């Protein structure tokens, strides 16, 4: 292919799949639904691969980046405000697209097995394709407004899929919670867009970057404000403090959804958005440090909650929040490519872990409680093997993918010096916690003796195991590309910072990078050892520790009571305000009163006026005659002689 990459096909193919399955799916056989739902994202992946091949130059004329595709018809054209449907392919969006359209079809394939017996099979795949559509719009968007379309769209798809089992109250509530909490973030995004428009007159990313670059005086001030508003948006979408509360509840959705949307792709949109707008953050050190603090705080906060959760999907959900915190931490020290690197490897191993968890849940008949599992490794050998890979990857063992990316972020934080060392230390503690709770999950679910002997687990079909194996391979090899090559490739999009240069420069014998990497692995190993001790060698210890620290354990088990806190500080006052002020005073009092008043006036005047409409012809005729008589009187009587003064005045008034 030369010249034209047909980027527009990437979102529109899944969209066609969505329309087809969404409208006709109810009446179609499952095989056809499956074919359509699979072909659409696979074809989109083909387009992305083709673009990638063109970029990496196997062809005679490689495409140079950024490659921009504009729809010939503009979207918004006003006096000095233009927005186009423009798709931009640059290193950043290419990486993101490869992740989204690469992991997406794998999860679609997995879903065929997982959702086989579910009601609304067609609905599920229609929503999944819809998600792929919006996600690729978000990634490809060349301006903030188009990105916002994708941003809202993935929120919609997420809402629909969380509430997929809508007959279940908890699922419907979780969907609403996700949507509403995301609205708070979207508010930030909107404010940021308005400010961008007011200050730069454009929403196109490249133009904003050029305008900021031209004037070195742009620093802090309004840029800080824009960046913080964007951060609010990113925190909503990527489940960061203080808006992370929706993500754990989002696990009410089917497990493939948790893997695709709430682990691999959508929740990383916030990180992607920050990287996309990195110019703004680069010009505001304050906003950047806020990003770092939010990220670090979220990372350790969510990790501590993850320590004691008993629902296998919730452990993974908190782990996702925590890993997203890592990515924010990376963005916060301006190591954008390290963040994107972690985003990519995280997409691999977290999708793997979720799908493996789904496979476990599927195998034991829908049970999600870790305390009722155990000893599954013999019954589910392949699931066990891939989970092991996932656990090793997320814990950051060499040479699994998570090691390279996590190490890159930690190195970048450390290399920043000063407060960066604190961030590094928090990251390291988080790594310890991560390693611990992942191995806890591993021990509880797969090792030891079965705690529900009456269940007879069965290994999942190959449509589910195939994607697991592929993702496991990616989780092993995904990091081997190395951060230095990765950041060199991304540099045109996110800029190159000295801080991210080569932690694993192999030409240095013993470097800081080596040292930090060894420390990180040792910490991960320590986490494993603790988990090993508590859940294999001395299983009674865990309960003893919990009993020894009842306050702390309960605090963690109840997730720091954050939901309750929000319930009392935000939701209750808001509900009270709505009910008593808006409901009784405004609605019933003011609006209802006004309506009653208007109705009363109309009724009253009607009661008076209806006397004219007696229905009696003769009374009408009498009025008619009286009117005619009055007109005659006015015309015929010589008023000027009868009443000269009044006519004089009338004449003056009339201007004669």
């Amino acid at each position, binding site marked *: 292919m030369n010249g034209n990459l047909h980027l527009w096909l990437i979102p529109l193919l899944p969209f066609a799949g969505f329309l087809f399955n969404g409208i006709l799916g109810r009446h179609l056989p499952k095989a056809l639904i499956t074919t359509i739902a699979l072909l659409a994202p696979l074809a989109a992946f083909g387009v992305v691969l083709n673009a990638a091949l063109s970029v990496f130059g196997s062809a005679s004329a490689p495409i140079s980046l950024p490659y921009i595709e504009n729809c010939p018809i503009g979207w918004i054209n006003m006096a000095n405000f233009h927005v186009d449907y423009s798709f931009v392919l640059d290193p950043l969006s290419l990486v993101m697209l490869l992740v989204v359209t690469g992991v997406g079809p794998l999860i679609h394939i997995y879903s065929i097995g997982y959702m086989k017996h579910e009601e609304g099979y067609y609905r599920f795949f229609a929503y999944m394709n819809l998600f792929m559509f919006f996600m690729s719009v978000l990634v490809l968007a060349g301006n903030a407004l188009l990105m916002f379309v994708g941003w809202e769209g993935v929120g919609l798809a997420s809402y629909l899929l969380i509430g997929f089992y809508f007959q279940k109250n908890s699922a419907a509530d979780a969907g609403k919670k996700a949507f509403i909490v995301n609205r708070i973030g979207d508010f930030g995004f909107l404010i940021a867009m308005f400010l961008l428009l007011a200050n730069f007159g454009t929403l196109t990313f490249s133009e904003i970057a050029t305008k900021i670059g031209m004037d070195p005086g742009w620093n802090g001030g309004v840029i800080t404000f824009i960046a913080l508003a964007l951060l609010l948006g990113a925190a909503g979408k990527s489940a960061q403090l203080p808006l992370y509360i929706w993500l754990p509840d989002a696990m009410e959705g089917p497990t493939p959804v948790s893997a695709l949307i709430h682990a691999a792709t959508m929740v990383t949109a916030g990180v992607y958005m920050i990287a996309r707008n990195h110019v703004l953050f680069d010009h505001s050190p304050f906003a950047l440090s806020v990003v770092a603090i939010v990220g670090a705080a979220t990372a350790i906060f969510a990790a501590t909650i993850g320590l004691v959760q008993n629902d296998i999907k919730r452990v993974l959900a908190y782990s996702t929040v925590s890993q997203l915190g890592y990515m924010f931490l990376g963005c916060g020290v301006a190591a954008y490519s390290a963040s994107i690197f972690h985003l990519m490897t995280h997409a691999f191993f977290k999708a793997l872990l979720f799908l493996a968890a789904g496979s476990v849940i599927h195998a034991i008949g829908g049970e999600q409680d870790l305390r009722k599992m155990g000893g599954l490794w013999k019954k589910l050998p392949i699931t066990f093997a891939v989970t092991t890979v996932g656990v090793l990857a997320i814990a950051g063992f060499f040479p699994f993918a998570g090691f390279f990316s996590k190490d890159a972020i930690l190195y970048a934080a450390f290399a920043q010096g000063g407060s960066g060392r604190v961030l590094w230390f928090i990251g390291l503690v988080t790594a310890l916690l991560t390693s611990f709770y992942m191995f806890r999950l591993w021990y509880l679910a797969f090792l030891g003796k079965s705690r529900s002997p009456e269940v007879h687990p069965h290994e999942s079909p190959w449509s589910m195991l195939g994607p697991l194996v592929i993702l496991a391979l990616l989780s092993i090899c995904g990091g081997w590309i190395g951060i230095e090559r990765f950041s060199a490739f991304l540099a045109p999009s996110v800029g190159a910072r000295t801080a991210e240069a080569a932690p694993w420069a192999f030409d240095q014998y013993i470097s800081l990078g080596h040292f930090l990497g060894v420390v990180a692995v040792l910490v991960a190993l320590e986490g494993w050892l603790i988990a090993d001790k508590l859940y294999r060698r001395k299983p009674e210890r865990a309960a003893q520790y919990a009993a020894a620290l009842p306050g702390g354990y309960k605090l963690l088990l109840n997730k720091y009571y954050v939901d309750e806190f929000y319930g009392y500080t935000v939701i209750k006052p808001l509900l009270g305000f709505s009910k008593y002020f808006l409901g009784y005073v405004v609605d019933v009092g003011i609006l209802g009163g006004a309506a009653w008043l208007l109705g009363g006036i109309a009724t009253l005047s009607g009661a008076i006026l209806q006397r004219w409409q007696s*229905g009696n012809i003769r009374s009408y*005729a009498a009025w008619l005659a009286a009117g005619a008589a009055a007109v005659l009187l006015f015309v015929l009587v010589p008023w000027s002689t009868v009443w000269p003064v009044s006519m004089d005045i009338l004449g003056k008034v009339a201007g004669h």
Partner: protein
Amino acid sequence: MNPFLAQFQQEVPLSWYLILSATLFSFGVVGFLIKRNLITVFMSIELMLNAVNLSFVTFAHQWHAVKGQIFVFFVMMVAAAEAAVGLAIIIAVFRVRATLAVDRIDRMKL
């Protein structure tokens, strides 16, 4: 010619016609207002129309203009049409209500 006969040779003055017309019209109005029977009311309307016709003809004669007479034909035509429609309505109303008292006919629906 002797003066007695000459007096009859004179034209009837304009005002007499107009006064007659006004009187007829007033009778029509009063009849319309006070009579209860629908047919009488209808006749009152005809009376008013003809009163107007009379003043049209009078003025046509006075000014030697033919327009007034043309108007009279129009009015007569409309009156004829109106009579046909009106009488049809009266019959229809009587069939349903069994009365022709205008005071009783105060509903738009049957």
